[in-house]
């Protein structure tokens, strides 16, 4: 059996995804209990400056895997580099964020190295020698605990914003190993033609700490400015229900729900959203849920922490003002 609890440290243009620190923090106790080193494995191009970012969250060792071909994420390049390192170093466990990249890279690697893989986990713990993961199934209608059997390497992807990142301890240090992987042009079969980023300064829904969403009760695209104003006051990202997206009021990328994005913010404010089970599947693990809806029978009132039974058009603007006042204090 190998040794080493690895955390794939996802980064983009030198910005490390928060989920990396959440996983490192949670994995520290597991590494201690198993007596194995906790290693951050960071892939990218020109990432030498990231070497000292992981020790404060508990990493014993950092692999900086640097190559031209890792500048933009492609499954082929990242899988080649990571699998070569895995063959060489033989970890026991590999953890990644269940992000767009993590959910694409993990099954590729798991299939190549013939490892067990559990996706989108919300809890990780040790039971005896083995890791136990808890994850939602049926869009969150139920939860399962999953263990590994007959696998050399255990792999899992962890849902962002669920585990808690520890307070960074700047006094800690880690061994940094620079790795130059072998990746040839033939290894990479997918060619990126164009990247189109929308609203560069907005935090993606899946990483947002606060989300304000508008649903069918918004009655039209032209009414969303009040939601945007509330979001601005809170430093939040704007989301939408399927009804709003299907009506063409908001882009598909704003959709929260079973067939949209799964989010786990600290605060989710649902405006004019009835709270159908498919919407709840996308935001049910939010820490605090607020519902604003004039229909007192709306299912969401049975699934929220705070409810305001009133017309959202009369509640949201004053709420925005109150928030601004509080923040100014």
């Amino acid at each position: 059996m190998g040794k080493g609890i690895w955390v794939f440290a996802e980064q983009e243009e030198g910005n490390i995804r928060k989920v990396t620190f959440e996983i490192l923090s949670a994995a520290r106790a597991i590494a201690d209990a198993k007596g194995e080193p906790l290693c951050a494995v960071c892939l990218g191009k020109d990432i030498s400056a990231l070497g000292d970012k992981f020790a404060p969250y508990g990493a014993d060792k950092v692999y900086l895997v640097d190559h031209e071909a890792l500048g933009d994420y492609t499954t082929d390049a990242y899988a080649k580099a990571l699998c070569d390192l895995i063959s060489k170093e033989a970890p026991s466990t590999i953890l990644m964020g269940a992000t767009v990249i993590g959910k694409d890279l993990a099954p590729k690697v798991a299939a190549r190295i013939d490892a067990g893989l559990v996706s989108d986990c919300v809890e990780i713990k040790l039971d005896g020698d083995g890791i136990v993961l808890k994850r939602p199934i049926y869009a969150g209608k139920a939860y399962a605990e999953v263990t590994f059997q007959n696998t050399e390497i255990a792999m899992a992807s962890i849902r962002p914003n669920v585990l808690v990142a520890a307070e960074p301890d700047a006094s800690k240090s880690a061994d940094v190993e620079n790795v130059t992987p072998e990746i040839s042009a033939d290894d990479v079969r997918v060619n990126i033609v164009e990247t189109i980023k929308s609203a560069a300064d907005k935090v993606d829904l899946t990483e947002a700490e606060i989300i304000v969403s508008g649903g069918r009760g918004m009655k039209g695209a032209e009414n969303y400015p009040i939601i945007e104003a509330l979001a601005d006051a809170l430093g939040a990202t704007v989301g939408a229900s399927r009804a709003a997206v299907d009506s063409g009021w908001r882009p598909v990328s704003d959709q929260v729900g079973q067939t949209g994005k799964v989010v786990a913010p600290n605060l989710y404010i649902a405006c004019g959203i009835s709270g159908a089970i498919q919407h709840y599947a996308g935001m049910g693990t939010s820490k605090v849920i607020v519902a604003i809806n004039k229909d007192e029978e709306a299912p969401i009132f049975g699934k929220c922490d705070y409810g305001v039974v009133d017309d959202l058009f009369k509640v949201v603007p004053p709420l925005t003002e109150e928030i601004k006042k509080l923040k100014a204090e």
Partner: protein
Amino acid sequence: MNSIVCLKQVPDTEAQLKVKSEGIGTDGVKFIISPYDEYGVEEALVQKEKAGAGEVSILCLGPDRCVEAIRTGLAMGADKAFHIDDPACDGSDAMATAKVLAEQIKKMDDYDLIFCGKQAIDDDQGQVGVALAEHLGLPHASLVTKVEVADGKAKVNRQIVGGEQIVELPLPCVITAQKGLNEPRYASLPGIMKAKKKPLSPVKIADLGIDAATTGAAGSKTKAGNFSSPPARTEAKIIAGESPEEKAAALAKALREEAKVI
């Protein structure tokens, strides 16, 4: 334009499930084609229609009841189907499932595109499509919202964090379908009638040269158990107030002082 579509039959999203520690009860539940797989069926048909010719084959691993979902795919317009229905596969996890599907596909030739949904809406693992591509040695694109085929390549739009990406990959390749790829057609009555005569071939793992010990619950590397219902939320506090403005103020105060989230 020949395509293979992997399809899973799953409980309907509205289904009431019985959650017991040993497992999830689905008796009496309505079953459907997993919605993301349905986008795959539709896209295979669209690409065949655009090319003017081709064959769409459905592939499904699952028990006897899956025939209904397979027939729906055939009724939508697919040409033939393979149903891997073998008790040895019961309890296979996603990785084990991908291996079985790969062995079936290795026996098929002359395909350009393989479609899978981004995830099945029961297990929500999202592994099969990508793992399948790896086992077949094929490139893949995940979270795809648009497919254009030209000159032996697929040019696809895919979702990334904060936006979209257009990538090109050689055929044959695997595509995992995301919402927005298309609007699946309803099976027409003539389609339903024709589907009854289309070939639906049962497959056993022995036909694929797979050893029972390497598949099913025992052959999988992960094991799910101790199922539970989601933790109940404490009862909602309905904010009181004489006016919307009062309620707004009370809510803001509660969020700051009580919930401490702002």
